[in-house]
């Protein structure tokens, strides 16, 4: 069956073969139909356990989408699939109309404009805040150009701008390892911004934050939507309510419900799963 599918894929008449597309346009994002991310019929199983079960999900360009779900619902696995860390058993993942993410490695996916924030804040602890942002900056990331790279004035301005957005201007020369938990979360979001991605995947951004920090994070993420598409995975319902326009509920690896926060909360399936017992 798989071979047949593959043959069909090769013989598709609505598009030319990938290798015939000129390099310059191959990785050009095409969002003319609306969605920026197409996740279709994706299944991932680990030793028989289906972490994702026939998951289908579309994210629109410029949208801020919240994804909620209990532990083990497949939120992190979904991010792993989109960013190239995990290869699904079945299904397809497209960035825009044309870019097949399943064929790309993590750095390639990062390069075409998908940024990811981990659940546990992951920054380069040994480096200063400034260096962290510099490293994340959109630039030629091959070995030799990196060896000879020098910061231009424009790039410095961009770093200053992001430092301002994430509120870490005062801490710029501090070692990232010495920052508070909340500050690390912001720094990581700042690193995503430096990459200038079209799509941001943000995994539990407010875990372990104080209410004030949570509020600021909410503002930050809402301000990003529009210019970037943002997907936020979160447990904190209060927070989701404060930022979400559309909410997707995952349950056992597939979509249980989708809609506005109120719709979702009144959905009988969701109520059963969450409040069932």
């Amino acid at each position, binding site marked *: 069956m798989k071979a047949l599918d593959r043959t069909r894929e090769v013989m598709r008449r609505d598009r030319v073969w990938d290798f015939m597309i000129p390099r310059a346009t191959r990785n050009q994002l095409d969002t003319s139909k609306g969605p920026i991310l197409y996740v279709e019929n994706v299944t991932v199983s680990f030793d028989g356990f289906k972490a994702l079960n026939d998951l289908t999900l579309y994210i629109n360009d410029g949208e801020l989408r919240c994804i909620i779900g209990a532990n083990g619902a497949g939120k992190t696995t979904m991010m792993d699939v989109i960013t190239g860390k995990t290869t699904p058993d079945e299904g397809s993942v497209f960035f825009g109309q044309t870019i097949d993410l399943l064929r790309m490695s993590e*750095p390639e996916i990062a390069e075409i404009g998908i940024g990811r924030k981990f659940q546990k804040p992951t920054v380069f602890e040994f*480096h200063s805040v400034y260096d962290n942002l510099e490293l994340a900056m959109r630039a030629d*990331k091959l070995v030799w150009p990196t060896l000879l790279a020098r910061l231009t004035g424009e790039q410095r301005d961009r770093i200053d701008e992001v430092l301002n957005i994430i509120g870490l201007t005062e801490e710029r020369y501090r070692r990232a390892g010495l920052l508070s938990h909340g500050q690390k979360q912001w720094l990581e979001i700042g*690193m995503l911004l430096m990459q200038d991605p079209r799509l941001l995947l943000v995994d539990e951004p407010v875990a372990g934050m104080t209410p004030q920090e949570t509020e600021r994070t909410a503002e930050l993420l809402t301000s990003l939507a529009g210019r970037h598409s943002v997907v936020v995975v979160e447990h904190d319902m209060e927070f989701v309510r404060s930022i979400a326009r559309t909410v997707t509920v995952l349950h056992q690896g597939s979509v249980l419900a989708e809609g506005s926060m109120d719709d979702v909360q009144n959905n009988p399936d969701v109520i059963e799963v969450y409040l069932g017992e």
Partner: protein
Amino acid sequence: MSMFAEIFKRDPGGNSMLGILGVLAILVPILNLAVPESSPLHMSTYTVTLLGKYLTYALLALAVDLIWGYCGILSLGHGAFFALGGYAMGMYLMRQIGDRGVYGNPELPDFMVFLNWQELPWYWYGFDQFWFALIMVFLVPGVLAYVFGWLAFRSRVTGVYLSIITQALTYALMLAFFRNEMGFGGNNGLTDFKDILGFSLQQDGTRIGLFLASALALAASYFLCRAIVNSKLGRVVVAVRDAEDRARFIGYRVENYKLWLFVVSAMLAGLAGALYVPQVGIINPSEFSPLNSIELVIWVAIGGRGTLYGAVAGAFLVNYAKTWFTGVLPEFWLFALGALFVVVTLYLPKGLAGLLARRREAMA
């Protein structure tokens, strides 16, 4: 010019290391050549050669520190690259002997005549030329590191598994070089060298020349490593050490960075081996022994990994201790080395360089 200024800036440890190296480079030739032998200040040629040997060890430690201290790749097989560089130089020195060997064969080294070989194996061609040997000193370790690293880093082999296969690599090479059929002199290795670039190896002047060449190579390599570590690439490499996934997800092809650094490091190790061989006068397969590679990691750990000058200092201190111990209490050297390693790991995780840095911070 600004790049050099940047390198000197904020590196007190490295500057003092280079200062000491400079003083040695001036003092040693004077004490050995100009001061008469009867004077108590005279430095024997034995000591000069010993210091030269330490310098090549320091260069090797520098190479290990570059990948271990900054990129977190614990290679327990760097002795292999050192030995390969040494063999490349040894082959040149063998060809320089010409017909002055025991058997007087102008073409074949003695061990080949002894094995009844009729002609020179193809891989010995070109080694009569110094420039060719010099290229091979860098190329052979570099290519091996490239192939090995390409396979290992692409399959994302990291941590202790990588260390174990580097051990296997050097062990396999040792077994291979022990074989006479390999054409590298079997377990005797290459020895009985006569001269290098036309200068007799027995002359004090040549010894001083080799010592100075080693000092120069160490200083130049230090600059190179310092420049690499200070560049953006250096920061990426440290980032890979601390959070490999993060680096990958912001778009760095982590395996290429590791590979690049691994190859540079292997080439430096090869250079160290090439300078080592003419000074000690022999290269044999025991240089590949896994123990050597482990020992040199201990030099770096004791000196302080992640500080380039620390590796140099560690190599000097441990080897000086080794020379002293093996003279006084030969049976106890390995125990002392083990004890040293345990003490450093428990009480000085950042090595002697870390201790100095802490002192400096306490004073300030």
